[in-house]
């Protein structure tokens, strides 16, 4: 068992080391890889060895705890962080020398956030991560990237105000002063002491939650993410999406844990669930209209976070029902919902990293991110293409990939909790996601290249390997989700809900038992089909090119129209949505003031609900 403080110190020290070796990029790479590798190994060791609920009072009052939940978050952070560092070796070759410094600092802060079991320290590390990652977003120091970075910083700081107010209210409520009072914010203390039971306690929790919800992000306050991730280099976008928003959003979920204990209100949880549903639906529709590869992925990320919020919200709803009716069956649903949400969190970090890594590879090789200008890349970059295919299918929830399992569990939890409407919207969103990614895949990888991308090379191996590892993870968790559920997710669930029903007893996890059978049946079908295809043994596929040119209606060789001119638009899918999309487009003005007004309005709405006493 390794003290989280050691991991953080190693990462910060490594950052300092890279400062010394600023000019030598290779040395920086080696240091970064070693440091992040160590962090990853340490977290895995913690996973294997930790005795539950060990709290390490640090020298500075740092309140680190190693338990299932913190380990899961830290694992996501270090694992994706390690792959990001590996990926950026080739991706940003002409980078600023400060790149590694800030990556390692952000990593350290994120690990600190992950292991902190104290709201104050969570806040401190979150601010650290925000500041360091701003430099990463603005890495290129161009107008757009600077603008993206500053926008990110402004919105994040604005959100922090809510957190600070919330923390101050708790401080006020606890009536302890001075540095020693930081112990008040320890999660365990908050859970047991009862200072949160009053209205002020609830209000403070709520404010902190709102502040951290920006980092998740949720629907009306998601706007910083697409801008920031478009401005940032692809590796940083991955960092932002795959780990930042999860780790940074972690406190929000952590607050949910507190909510589980203090908010025994059906309305509250229905509002949270609706928030999740709205997030997923609206953002996926906006993602539809995007032509920029990374922007599309960013909006889709927000949409996927909606699933996580929905899963956790359903968990809270079930706990509320449980405390109202004391029927232990509700605990099953609660465990199902929370597990499903956390599982989707893990899955999302897997497939979204695959997609961002691939998007980065495409941008690296072709120099553009406009999906209308791309086409036929599967010939040139086959590995990237197939990896992205796996990632897209997983995110769309095609059976036998990991996205399907977690989404299935969320739907089942919704229906079991008596909220089928949420499940139906989630299913519809899944179909929309499917369409979004088909559009992306089809126009980028399939069809004919417009001609300018004839000399595209496959991406460098070191850029492909991380996405290969992640894609393998997607397939593994698709076939055998029990591994993830039992080893990674359930320990985290137990932290949030100590009375959770373990997977084998919970019918909501039963899908995993049949997935192997489903896989066998699918395989049988494929084999039967292939045998049918090959049944006419001797005949060789014909090769004459002219004979096997695609059918364009007869104008193939006519000088009137060349074959590569004959391309229908990739926006066909979004055509029926056009009026809706234009409506959404008008609301996304890109002005920070406007976004902050949104945030304030949203916060006022929720707070007024709280004050009225509905939640």
């Amino acid at each position, binding site marked *: 068992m390794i003290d989280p403080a050691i991991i953080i110190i190693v990462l910060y020290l490594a950052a300092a080391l890279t400062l010394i070796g600023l000019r030598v990029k290779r040395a920086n790479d080696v240091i970064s890889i070693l440091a992040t590798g160590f962090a990853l190994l340490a977290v895995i060791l913690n996973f294997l060895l930790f005795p539950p609920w060990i709290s390490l009072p640090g020298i500075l009052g740092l309140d680190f705890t190693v338990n299932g939940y913190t380990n899961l978050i830290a694992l996501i952070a270090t694992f994706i962080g390690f792959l990001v560092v590996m990926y950026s070796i080739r991706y940003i070759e002409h980078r600023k020398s400060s790149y590694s410094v800030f990556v390692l600092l952000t990593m350290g802060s994120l690990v600190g956030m992950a292991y902190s079991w104290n709201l104050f320290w969570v806040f401190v590390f979150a601010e650290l991560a925000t500041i360091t990652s701003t430099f990463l977003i603005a890495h290129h120091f161009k107008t757009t990237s600077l603008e993206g970075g500053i926008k990110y910083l402004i919105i994040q700081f604005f959100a922090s105000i809510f957190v600070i107010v919330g923390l101050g209210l708790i401080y006020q409520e606890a009536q302890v002063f001075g540095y020693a009072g930081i112990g008040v914010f320890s999660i365990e203390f908050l859970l047991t002491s009862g200072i949160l039971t009053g209205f002020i306690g609830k209000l403070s929790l709520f404010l902190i939650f709102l502040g951290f919800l920006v980092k998740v992000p949720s629907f009306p306050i998601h706007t910083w993410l697409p801008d920031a991730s478009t401005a940032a280099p692809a590796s940083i976008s991955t960092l932002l999406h795959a780990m930042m928003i999860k780790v940074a959003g972690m406190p929000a979920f952590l607050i949910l844990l507190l909510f589980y204990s203090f908010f025994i209100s059906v309305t509250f949880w229905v509002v949270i669930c609706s928030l999740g549903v709205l997030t997923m639906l609206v953002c996926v529709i906006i993602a539809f209209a995007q032509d920029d590869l990374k922007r599309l992925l960013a909006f889709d990320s927000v949409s996927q976070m909606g699933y996580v919020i929905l899963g956790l919200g359903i968990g809270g709803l079930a706990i509320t029902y449980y405390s109202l009716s004391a029927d232990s069956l509700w605990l099953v649903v609660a465990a199902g919902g929370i597990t499903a949400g956390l599982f989707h969190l893990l899955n999302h970090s897997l497939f979204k990293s695959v997609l961002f890594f691939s998007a980065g590879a495409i941008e690296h090789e072709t120099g553009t991110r406009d999906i209308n200008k791309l086409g036929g890349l599967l*010939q040139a970059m086959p590995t990237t293409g197939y990896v992205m295919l796996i990632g897209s299918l997983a995110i769309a929830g095609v059976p036998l990939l990991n996205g399907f399992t977690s989404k299935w569990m969320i739907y089942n939890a919704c229906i079991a909790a008596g909220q089928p*409407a949420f499940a139906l919207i989630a299913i519809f969103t899944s179909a929309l996601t499917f369409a979004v990614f088909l559009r992306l895949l089809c126009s980028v990888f399939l069809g004919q290249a417009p001609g300018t991308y004839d000399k595209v090379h496959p991406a460098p191996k070191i850029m492909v390997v991380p996405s290969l590892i992640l894609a393998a993870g997607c397939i593994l968790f698709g076939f055998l989700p029990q591994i993830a559920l039992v080893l990674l997710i359930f320990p985290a669930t137990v932290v949030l809900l100590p009375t959770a029903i373990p997977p084998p007893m919970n019918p909501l996890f039963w899908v995993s038992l049949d997935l192997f059978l489903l896989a*066998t049946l699918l395989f049988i079908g494929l084999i039967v089909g292939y045998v049918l*295809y090959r*049944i006419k043994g001797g005949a060789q*596929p014909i090769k004459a090119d002219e*004979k096997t040119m695609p059918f*364009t209606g007869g104008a193939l060789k006519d000088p009137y129209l060349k074959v590569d001119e004959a391309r229908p638009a990739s926006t066909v899918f979004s055509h*029926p949505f056009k009026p809706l999309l234009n409506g959404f487009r008008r609301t996304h003005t890109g002005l920070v003031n406007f976004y902050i007004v949104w945030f304030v309005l949203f916060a006022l709405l929720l707070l007024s609900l709280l004050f009225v006493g509905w939640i």
Partner: protein
Amino acid sequence: MQTVFDYLFIIALYFAVIGLAFFFSWGASWVFRKLSARLQARRGPPAYQPIADIIKLFGKERFTPALSNKFLYILSPLLALSAILILSFMIPPGTPLWPGPLAFDLIVILYFSVMFSLAFVIAGWASGSTWGKIGASREVVMILSVELPLAIALLIPSLALARGGFSFSLSITDVISAQQGTFIWILPNWFLFRYPLAAIALFLTLLTKSWMRPFGDIPEAEQEIFAGSLTEYGGPLLGIFELARLFRFYVFTALFVDLYLGGGVGFVFPFDLLIFLAKCLVIVILMTIVHVASARYRISHVFKWFLTVCLAFALFSLIRVLVGF
């Protein structure tokens, strides 16, 4: 947990059910073709025709178009076939057939039906043809429009079993056995009579999913875009696609009969199967009549229809289920 023996038994059962589905689809396909021919004042093909067409395709030469992606071009028909085979296994023929806690529930069915359509989308784009792409994009719009009403209409019977509480079940077999008895006077206790609007919505979506007019054949409208996604396909690969499409006559009708027409409930073993198949045949005939008596709509109409009228029907029933009147 299942033993290896259970596992093998299920695989044997798989082939048995597939056989049933195949022969029923063959017959239903012939009924469809013969009946639509007769309604159009034609004579119609002999009974062996549906299979003869497919066998003929398997005898033809194999090729891949020059601009296609070979791997996906070959994979997509196989994917379509295996998805539809799994679907035909997952939808029980009127009665519960398999042992053990198989979680082949309605959501898995929903997802596999999307996977089936996905195969056509990938086929269209992988083949490199203009018409394939247009067909594929239409298929996607179709999926988007149909998915929501389909999901609601599929889940309504299972929601009606539980009405909120935890005793819900997404399993089709539970839905079938819940339709025992009578509803009002002598009307059987079918969900068709209890939630007629949802039944209409499901019927329309399944009609569309099985390539029947007025909406279903838009992605492959021959007068507009040749054969849509399958424009570039020929020979054995087209044969596999056609074979996969043959199963639609079983899968989509059986789904409707199981969920809304009570399957073969109320009869002992061989008869329940027969009753079930007879009901399926009635649905096929109904679908044929609708197919024959309508013009093809535009793709924008599909979007409008399914996300307004059809969705309204489904939502109304959903509210009824949730409120409980």
